């Protein structure tokens, strides 16, 4: 039982670290493409770890259906954040390509989810 | 200080922020958003009242909760109508529409 709690604690902690990294990337990195890169990667792994951490608790307490839902949520998020990141990247790329990049970086601002 | 009282005070604060936003908001969209904030605050107040009235096997009094659902949908249709008006106004102004008879400065 203790091992279970230990595992959960560790995973959730690691997940939080990744989330922090993602947010740090969002604030510090210069242009939209790199920010997107940081956010998409870090948040996905972060969420995966937290889901991994929570799963044993749910399974142990018998709520198998809830566990399945958590996994489904994680899958949906993988899909949607990946697709959205792709879309934003296309917009950001096209703006930087056509120089429509407004001087005060409004496009960059728009890139922020 | 029970959870309901905490959320009640938060709801009161949200209402105050909404009213502040409606007074200070410049342009219709800002005011529409402030209206939604105020609406959200009032609905949380409904939620707090429902939670205080929990009993007879329910986590909260179902009547105010049902009212909130109706309220949210009504608030949405108001915002949709407002947004459509804002867009149509922007479209007409962009087309160089003649200024309205009394050029009221919308300060």
């Amino acid at each position, binding site marked *: 039982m203790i091992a279970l709690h230990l595992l959960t604690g560790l995973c959730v902690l690691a997940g939080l670290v990744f989330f922090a990294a993602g947010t740090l990337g969002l604030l510090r990195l210069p242009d939209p493409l790199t920010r997107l890169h940081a956010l998409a990667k870090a948040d996905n792994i972060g969420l995966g770890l937290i889901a991994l951490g929570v799963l044993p608790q749910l399974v142990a307490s018998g709520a198998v259906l809830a566990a399945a839902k958590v996994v489904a949520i994680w899958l949906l998020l993988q899909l949607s954040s990946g697709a959205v990141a792709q879309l934003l990247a296309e917009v950001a790329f096209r703006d930087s390509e056509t120089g429509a990049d407004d001087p005060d970086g409004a496009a960059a601002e728009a890139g922020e989810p | 200080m029970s959870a309901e009282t905490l959320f009640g005070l938060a709801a009161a604060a949200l209402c105050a922020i*909404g009213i502040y936003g409606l007074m200070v908001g410049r342009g219709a969209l800002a005011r529409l958003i402030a*209206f939604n904030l105020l609406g959200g605050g009032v609905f949380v107040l409904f939620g707090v009242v429902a939670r205080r009235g929990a009993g007879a096997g329910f986590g909260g009094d179902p009547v105010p909760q049902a009212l909130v659902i*109706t309220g949210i949908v*009504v608030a949405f*249709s*108001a915002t949709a109508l*407002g947004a459509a*008006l804002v867009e*149509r*106004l922007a479209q007409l102004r962009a087309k160089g529409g003649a200024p309205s008879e009394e050029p009221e400065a919308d300060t």
Partner: protein
Amino acid sequence: MSGGALPGLPPADMLLVLAVILPLFGLLPLLLLGSRLAERLTLLVLAAGLAVALGIGAEVAAAGQAATAFIGGWRPPLGVGLRADGLSAVMLVMTAVVLCATGLYAMTGPATPRAAGERMPTAFWMLLLCVWSALNLVFVAEDLFTLYVALELLTFAAVPLVCLDGKEGQIEAALRYLVFALFGSVLYLLGTVLIYALYGTLDIILAARRASVSPGLVVALAAMTAGMMAKAALFPLHLWLPPAHSGAPPAASAMLSAVVIKAPIFLLVRFWLDLAPESLAVKVGPILAGLGAAAILMCSLVALAQHRLKLLIAYSTAAQIGYLFLMFPLAAAASAWSALAWTGGALHLASHAFSKAAMFMAAGLIAEAVGHDRIKGLTGLGRALPVSVAAFGLGGLSLMGLPPAGGFVAKVMLLSAAVHLGNWWIALVILIGGLLAGGYVLRVVVPALQRPAAPLALRPVAGWREWVALALALVAVGLGFVPLEPSAYLAIGRPASWAEGAP
């Protein structure tokens, strides 16, 4: 089934529900029809609705008590109750008559201007039926949240009516009207949730029975009253009324100024005379009357200074609303004279509806014929459009409070009550209001009666539309023959209670 149903008429509670859902039955198929069919169907529904309203009036008179109906058979506090007492019946009939006249006025006939396409007429008929259903619900509902939904239905129907022509100025006015009305209705909702938190019911009558003066009730009533004053455009909250009511197409502004603006006022009367305890009503009465007096004086003065006819009439609406708020301190005091003030207020509500609708319709016809809205260019119009100018003049007569119009009897009733209850400043304001109303009405009518300086080039106007406006004005004059005493009909169903009828 409650109350003795008149033979031949369906039971009262079915009529009550019919009053609310009949316009909806008319509205929904309109989405599938073209504008010609939509018009015919709407006029049919208007006629049927008028019959229902008159039926309710007859039932209430015959039974001598309020007609009640419970949605789905569930009695308050769980279910929603509809109840029509004397005042509601009068309002239902008034609304039905005004909207039928508006329907006839807006009917496309040989000489009416061709609408550019399907959009305007179809949307107009749908919105008219929505306004009607919402108004009927406001007059009969006894549940605070149902009233909120009815008010929202009314606002969402009124806002598109304001900007039906699609010009930029009107859309700006409609947007300002929408957001300010929303501000008002969310404050009303704030009051509603506090009432529920205090008394565990949303029904006005049950809440009134449990009501006791407490900080919660004070804040709730303050929020609800402020919300309704915002929607009723009482001075200084009238920013949206002049541009909205003057910008709307004539048939729409007739509806807006005559009946739509009356719903929030009716609710205020409902709150302060049914829901609120007497001690609070006495404290708040002077504030409402003070703002009403300010509305009468300020808006009449601004109406005097207007150059456009429709703006003048819109400011006149803002002023006449002030009269209705003068009623609160008079009707709140528990004395025989308050019954007279109560009758005077109801009569003013009705006669203003008829005369204002007639004036806006007349203004619409004048603008159509002359091609512009400026008051200066109307000299000598009386000879060219006698019926329209007569409609405008008779409507103005009622606003000025001159015999034999309904406005006169209402003014006398309010004056008598004010004099007897010692509110001298209210009596003075009523008199000054009559003078100022005389100013801005005669300012239009007198040049119209003189000989035109240059012959006016007029576009043809459909004769029957002028007669519709004149008919409404004559109804306002007809109200002048209401006897000068507290009306027994309005006393039916007061004080409000669910006790009568089925246990």
